[in-house]
C-alpha cells in the first residue's frame, strides 16, 4: 500500500467562492447528463456577513468506503491509491450507496428502463472505470481517465482560486498546513470532512 500515493480531496472553504468552476468543469469534462452533478458547490448562511462560507462536495474516496461496504451487488472496487470506483455494468441503481455516503456523492440519472432511475454515477477522481483505459466505452460510461494520462482531475485543476486540492495525502496535508499557518488562525486538526472520510 505504502508504495502508492493515497489520493485525497480537500476543499479550502476560506478560498472557495462558489464559482462553480469545479462543478461545471466536471460536467463538461465527462459530458455528464444535465441531471447529474458529480461535484456540487454548497454555500451556507448566504448573505450573512462573517458567517457565509462555501465548499465543494463530491465523492471523497473514503477509507473503508461505506458505499463499497453496503453495495448489495459488490460493484465497487478500491484502487491501491485509494480511488473508489464502481462498475456500472454490475450496478443495479438501488441507491444504497447514497444512503451510506456521508457526502451525498452518488447520483442517479433517469436513464434506466422506462425512464426510471438508472445506474449510479459518481466522481471517479477522473480515473475512469473498469473498462479498458481510455477506450471509447470507458469514456462513455465514466468520462475521462485523466489519472491514466498523468493529469490532475479536472475539478481541482480548474479551481479558480485553488481552493480545491487533490493529490497524495501527504501533499494535500502539506498544502493544508501551509495555508492554516499563513492565515495564522489557530490550527484545525484536519481539513473539513476528512475525519468522516478518512477516519483520521
Amino acid at each position, binding site marked *: 500500500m505504502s508504495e502508492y500515493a493515497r489520493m485525497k480531496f480537500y476543499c479550502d472553504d476560506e478560498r472557495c467562492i462558489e*464559482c462553480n468552476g469545479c462543478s*461545471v468543469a466536471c460536467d463538461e469534462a465527462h459530458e455528464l447528463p444535465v441531471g447529474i452533478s458529480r461535484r456540487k458547490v454548497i454555500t451556507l448562511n448566504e448573505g450573512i456577513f462573517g458567517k457565509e462560507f462555501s465548499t465543494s462536495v463530491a465523492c471523497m474516496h473514503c477509507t473503508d468506503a461505506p458505499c463499497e461496504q453496503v453495495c448489495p451487488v459488490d460493484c465497487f472496487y478500491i484502487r491501491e491509491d485509494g480511488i473508489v470506483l464502481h462498475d456500472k455494468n454490475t450496478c443495479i441503481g438501488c441507491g444504497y450507496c447514497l444512503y451510506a455516503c456521508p457526502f451525498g456523492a452518488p447520483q442517479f440519472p433517469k436513464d434506466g428502463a422506462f425512464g426510471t432511475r438508472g445506474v449510479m454515477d459518481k466522481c471517479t477522481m477522473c480515473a475512469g472505470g473498469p473498462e479498458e483505459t481510455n477506450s471509447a466505452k470507458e469514456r462513455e460510461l465514466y468520462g475521462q481517465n485523466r489519472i491514466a494520462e498523468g493529469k490532475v482531475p479536472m475539478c481541482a485543476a480548474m479551481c479558480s482560486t485553488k481552493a480545491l486540492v487533490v493529490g497524495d495525502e501527504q501533499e494535500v496535508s502539506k498544502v493544508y498546513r501551509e495555508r492554516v499557518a499563513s492565515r495564522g488562525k489557530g490550527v484545525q486538526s484536519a481539513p473539513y470532512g476528512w475525519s468522516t472520510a478518512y477516519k483520521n
Partner: protein
Amino acid sequence: MTNHLGDIQNAKAIIIFGANPAVNHPVGFGHFLKAKERNNAQIIVVDPRMTKTAAKADLYAQIRPGTDIPFMYGMLHLIFKNGWHKKEFIKDRVFGMDEVMKEAEKWTPEKTADVTGVSKELIIQITTAYAKATPGTLIWAMGLTQHTIGSSNTRLAPIVQLALGNMGEEGGGTNILRGHDNVQGATDMCCLSHTLPGYYGLSKGSWGYFAKSWGVDFDWLKGRFQDEKMMSTKGYTLAKWYSGVLAGKPGEDKIHGTPLKALFVMGNGITSISQQAKVKEALDNLELIVLADPFVNEAAILTDKQDDVFILPAATQFETSGSVTATNRSAQWRSKVVDPMYESKTDHEIMFDLAKKLGFYDEYVKGMLMKENKKEFTFPEDATDEIARIIKTIGLTGWTAERLKKHQENWHMFDEVSLRGFGPMKGEYYGLPWPCWTEGHSGSPVLYDIHRPVKEGGMGFRNRFGLEHDGVDLLAGKGSAPAHSANKDGYAEITAKNIEEVLGITLTADEKAKIGKNWKVDTSNIIAEKCMEAGIAPYGNAKARAKVWTFPDPIPMHREPLHSPRPDLVKEYPTYADKPNHYRTDTKYASVQNEKDWSKEFPINLITGRLVNLNGAGMENRASKYLAKLTPDMFCDIHPDLAYEHGIRNGRMMWIHSPEGTKIKVKAKFSYSVGSDRVFIPFHFAGVFQGKDLSDRYPEGTAPYSTGESANTVTNYGYDIITQIPETKGGLCRIEKA
C-alpha cells in the same frame, strides 16, 4: 487597471467599491485571497449587497446605492484629519488636492453615516484599517461607474489613492476590473462614439493623422461623412441610441442630428442595456436591423418588427485568432482552435465582405499593406502591426504580432506576482502591458511607477492639460521623475520642438527630418526611442489632476441619484441641470429628479449585478446546458422581512415596477444579502418581456436553455453627465406579489 491581478498579492489592504470579483472575476479573485494569506491583507468591501466577495472580506459596509462619493469623502475626512495622507507625494505629484481637502472637511463621520447608511464606527474602522496599511489597492467596477455621478465616482477613488500615496506603487493603484474579455482592447481601439482608436479625439488633426496612417486621402474620408462638422461630432451611444430612433415622438428626448434608421450590431447584447422598453420601441421603428452573433441576439426576439431583421452567424473567438487585452492592459494572443462552425463567418470577414459591397474595401484594408508595401495581407497579424504602427497615445508600438505570439508560446516563463519574464522572456512583462513604447520595451505592469526606469515600465503622470492652471504648475515636482531619468523633475510631453531640451540631446539632421510633430503622431518612433535611452516618458511627467476644471463638478461632488429614496438629501445634493445635446440627445437630470418625490411610490432601491455562471446579456452562457442549470430562472434576491410585508413567498413569482411604468415578473429568492430596503436582480436574462414569454420567437433550434425577464426593463432613467453610462445601480422600484 493601473496594476495587475498578480500584483494585488503585494497589497497590504484591499478596498473594493462596487465590484464583485468573486463572482465576476473568480480567477482574479484568487489573487486577492492569496494577498490575504501571504500578506495578511485585509479585504474591505463597500457594496449595497453582501456579495460573495464580501463573504471573504474582513470588513464590510452595506452602503446605500449611489453614495460612494460621501463614503470616500468620509474616508478622506479622517485621512486628512489624522494626517495619514502622504504630504510629499501630494505636493509633488497631485494638482488641486487642497480643494478636495476643503470638501472632505464637510464629511464628518456623522454626516457620512447619515448619507451612506453605514455606521460611524464602521467608517472609522474601515478608514483606519485601509489608510494605515500601505500599500493598499482600490478596486472598482460597474457598481461605481453606472451612476449619474459615475464619472465623479471614478475620479474620487483615485483621489483617495493619491492622498494615501498609493498610486504608482506595487500592491497599490486603482484596479478597475473590466467586464468582458476584451473591453480593454475594444476600448483602446475606441469602438466609441467620441474618440478614434487609441483615444485620439475627433478633431480634424486626429482625422488627418488617421487618414494618413490608413493611407487614404483626407478629403475622401471627409467626403464619406455628411460634412466636416459631423466628422468631429460625437455620435449616439450604446446607452441612448434609442433616442436617435424615437426622436420626435411625444415625451422623448430631443435629438441633435440625423434620426437613426439602421442598426448594425456585432456581438453586443443590447438586451442588457437600460430602458429595454424604449430599446424595444426603437427596434420596432428601425428600417433595418442587422445582428451578427454566434447565437441569436435577443434583440431579434424582443422586437415586433416583422421584416428586414437579419441575423448573421458570427464565429466565436475560438474560430479566429488575434490579440485580446486583459484588464491589466496585457495583450494575449489567441490562436485559432477550429474553423468557424456551420456557415458562420468571422467578424472581420463579415466586415470585409460588407466593405466590398459598400465600395470602400480597398481603402479599408490598405493600412495593413502599408508597413512593408505588401500586395496581400494576413489578418489579424497585419492588423496587429497596423495598430502598433499607428497608436502612440497608449504606447502600443511594441505590440507587434510576433512579440505577442512569443509571449503566448512562452506563457509559462512569467512570474505570477510580478509578471516578470524568465529565460527567453527576460526583460519583458507578460503581455507587454501598455504603454509599451518601443519594439524593445518591457511593457509597464504598474502605471505611474517612478521607482523604475521608463524602459522597464516606469513613468510619471501624463502631461496632457497644459503646463499650468490658475498659476499653479501642472508639471511634477522636483525629484519626482522615474528612476534613471536624464531629467529628474517634471517635464512637458515630448514634441519635436522640446525633445532636445528635455532629453538633453542633439538630434541629427536626418532624425530631425523624419521625426513627427509630437510623440502622439511620431510614426518614425524616434521620439520614443530617444526617450527610452534618456529614461524619459514620452508623454511627459506631470501632476495628476484632482481637479478637472472643464467638468461640471471640477472636484467630485455628491449628487443624489435621479430617483433617490432620500428626498431630504435630494434638496441638499441635487443632481445636474438637464443637459442638452449630450451625445446628440438631450438628457434629463433635474427635471426627472424634481418631477415628484419618487420614494413615496417607489420606496425600494433596485440594484442589478452579475451572476457567476452568466455574463453580459447571457445568451452565450444560457445556451450552455451546464451553465443554464445553475440558475434556471430569472430571480430577485429579496430580504424575507421585505417579502413578508408584501406577502411574497420564497420561490414564488413577484412583480417589480419601475418609475417609468415598466414591470417585470420574476421569481422571489429569499436572501439576507440585501437589506429590507432594497432588492437585487441579475441582468443576464432576456426572452421574456414584461410578463410575456417570447420564446416562440426564436428561430427553430436556437432557443437558449433558459430565458427570463431582462432586469434592464425596470432599471431607471438616468445617465452619467460625462460618459452617458446608464444609471443601473441606483434606481428605485415598487414590488408586489404576482
